[in-house]
């Protein structure tokens, strides 16, 4: 069996025991979980003893083995037909099995019953002795047999059906757990690789003093992350996210609470970006609520990393969906080119040449896919950078304009005002005092 496909790994023992216990108490019938060989793995938590009839049989050498065989076959039949399997065990009692199947693989069953559907009459004792010849102890069995529960066929069918539905539900839950676990493992591997790279880098740069406070580089990377998210570069965004999270692990990995706070900050940033980009506010609020809760509930670094990556993927998917189309690769390439070259004068012709399209063709598909024109995109990138420079640098407006490829600071200011609603100087003035 594949690793991770054993019952023990999929179902929480204490939860299962509790369920079996409740089942047993509610129906008055003992329920157990068996593996594919029919061996009992889990039984009810409370002191719910087996009926004396069964105990007598299981005590004998051959008896236990026959029971196991009955359960094994019943579980298999149930899994084969995807329905509750009601059967007569080797000793003559009525029982039923609900299969536990995950990813199409049969891993065990819940067995319940050990009852009769008829009042024991003379013929039943004949049956008992005939069916249990190899097991022996007939006199004892007949005696204990009188204590067996008798329930109607309808009750048997109803109980078996409920058991079956419950087993299905448990497996669906188990499926979710398995998938989450797999994703987490994959993600840890990616983060691990990232951290390893950084460690290598540290080794070679040992003599370079590390700046303990968040450096400009860190803020840059965060902005770039958000920009990539905004312009729809999903894979680029995830790449950066891993770098950021790896860095956070590095700095705060030893303090879970601090790490959690940093994750929250990141989550807030992501969600604000999503709102700015016109995903409906309600949807964003719902997503926020969901991820905030998961982050508060997480008790480990792995879980926190998992959730922030899930959040980033989900937010960006919603943006990404808007920009996805046949020409996505071209668009992405254009956007990357813009991002790398916006600081100097850029023309539509140059950009189009870069992707081997005519300017007309490119502008046509770009506008169709992205919603705004190529040059508007260039302006957007420049304005983002302008805002960043206004926030973090002491450069004056003229210098910033020049850095962005605008020869005329007046023209730059006009473009800025059109895009952001205020003049660059005003924008800078309105910024909150130092220390964001």
């Amino acid at each position, binding site marked *: 069996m594949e690793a991770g496909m054993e019952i023990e790994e999929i179902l929480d023992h204490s939860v299962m025991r509790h369920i079996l216990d409740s089942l047993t108490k509610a129906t008055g019938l003992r329920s157990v979980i068996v593996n594919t060989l029919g061996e009992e793995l889990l039984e009810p938590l409370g002191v719910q003893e087996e009926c004396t009839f069964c105990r007598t049989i299981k005590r004998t050498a051959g008896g236990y083995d026959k029971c196991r065989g009955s359960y094994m076959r019943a579980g298999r039949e149930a899994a084969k037909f995807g329905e509750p399997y009601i059967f007569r065990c080797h000793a003559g009692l*009525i029982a039923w099995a609900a299969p536990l199947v995950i990813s199409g693989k049969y891993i065990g069953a819940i067995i319940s019953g050990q009852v009769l559907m008829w009042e024991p009459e003379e013929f039943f004792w004949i049956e008992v002795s005939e069916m249990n010849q190899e097991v022996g102890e007939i006199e004892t069995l007949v005696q204990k047999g009188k204590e067996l529960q008798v329930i109607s066929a309808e009750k048997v069918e109803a109980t078996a059906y409920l058991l079956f539905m419950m087993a299905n539900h448990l497996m669906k839950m188990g499926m979710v757990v398995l998938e989450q676990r797999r994703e987490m493992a994959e993600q840890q591997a990616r983060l691990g690789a990232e951290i390893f790279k950084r460690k290598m880098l540290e080794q070679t740069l040992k003599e370079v003093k590390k700046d303990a406070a968040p450096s400009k580089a860190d803020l840059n990377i965060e902005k770039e992350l958000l920009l990539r998210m905004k312009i729809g570069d999903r894979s680029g965004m995830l790449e950066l996210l891993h770098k950021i999270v790896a860095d956070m692990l590095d700095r705060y990995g030893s303090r879970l609470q601090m790490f959690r706070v940093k994750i929250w900050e990141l989550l807030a940033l992501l969600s604000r970006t999503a709102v700015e980009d016109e995903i409906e506010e309600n949807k964003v609020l719902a997503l926020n609520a969901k991820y905030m809760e998961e982050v508060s509930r997480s008790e480990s670094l792995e879980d926190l990393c998992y959730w922030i990556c899930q959040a980033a993927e989900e937010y960006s998917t919603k943006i990404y969906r808007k920009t996805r189309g046949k020409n996505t690769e071209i668009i992405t390439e254009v956007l990357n080119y813009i991002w790398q070259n916006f600081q100097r004068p850029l023309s539509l012709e140059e950009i189009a040449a870069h992707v081997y399209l005519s300017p007309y063709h490119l502008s046509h598909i770009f506008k169709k896919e992205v919603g705004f024109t190529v040059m508007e995109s260039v302006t957007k990138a420049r304005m983002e950078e302008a805002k960043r420079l206004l926030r973090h640098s002491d450069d004056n407006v003229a210098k910033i304009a020049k850095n962005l490829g605008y020869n005329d600071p007046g023209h730059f200011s006009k473009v800025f005002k059109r895009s952001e609603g205020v003049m660059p100087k005003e924008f800078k003035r309105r910024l909150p005092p130092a220390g964001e």
Partner: protein
Amino acid sequence: MEILEQIYCAMILGQVQTVMTLTERAIQEGISPKEILENALMRTALELGEKYSVREIPITKVLISSRAILACLHVLIPLFNEGGQPYKGRVVAGTVAGDVHDLGKTIVMATLRGTGFEVIDLGIDVPPEKFKVAVEEYKPDILALSCLLTTTLVSIRETIALLERTGLRRQVKVLIGGGPVTASFAQAVGADYYGSDAYSAVQQVLTELKQKDNEEMDTL
């Protein structure tokens, strides 16, 4: 006959005591075990089989009614022997691998025993290997293979194939039967006898033996 009808009804309802009492009474009234077998018992078994296969009745009903069938059989079996049946031969019987149904097999075994055969029961879910070992050990005249699921027909084929490969096939007559078994299937796998139900299976065997030994079949 009215009493046979009554037995049939009681069997369908799973009324074990009633079935046994009525069966005994029928015998006393002079009705032969063979008649009871054919007109009450087999009728019930076939009806149950048909109705369950289309899920007209739930399995619980089949389980309950089967007991009544076995109860009836329980009364009849000793009576089969009363004619002092001469020993007719040895049969090894089993339900093939992957299948856990044995009601049909039980009826056939009981009937065979009743007509003078010695029957060794290998049980249910019997793999080809186990059949082969049994044939080697017991050297039966007849090997009876039973199945109820279409998915396990292949096990019949595999069992016969194994016997052929190990040179044992010629030593036994193979009888196959069960719900999904058809005449064409029987021919395809090279079975000697075939029964679409328990009773006709036994009839086949006896007919052939009668032809061989010129014995009266109606000593049943």
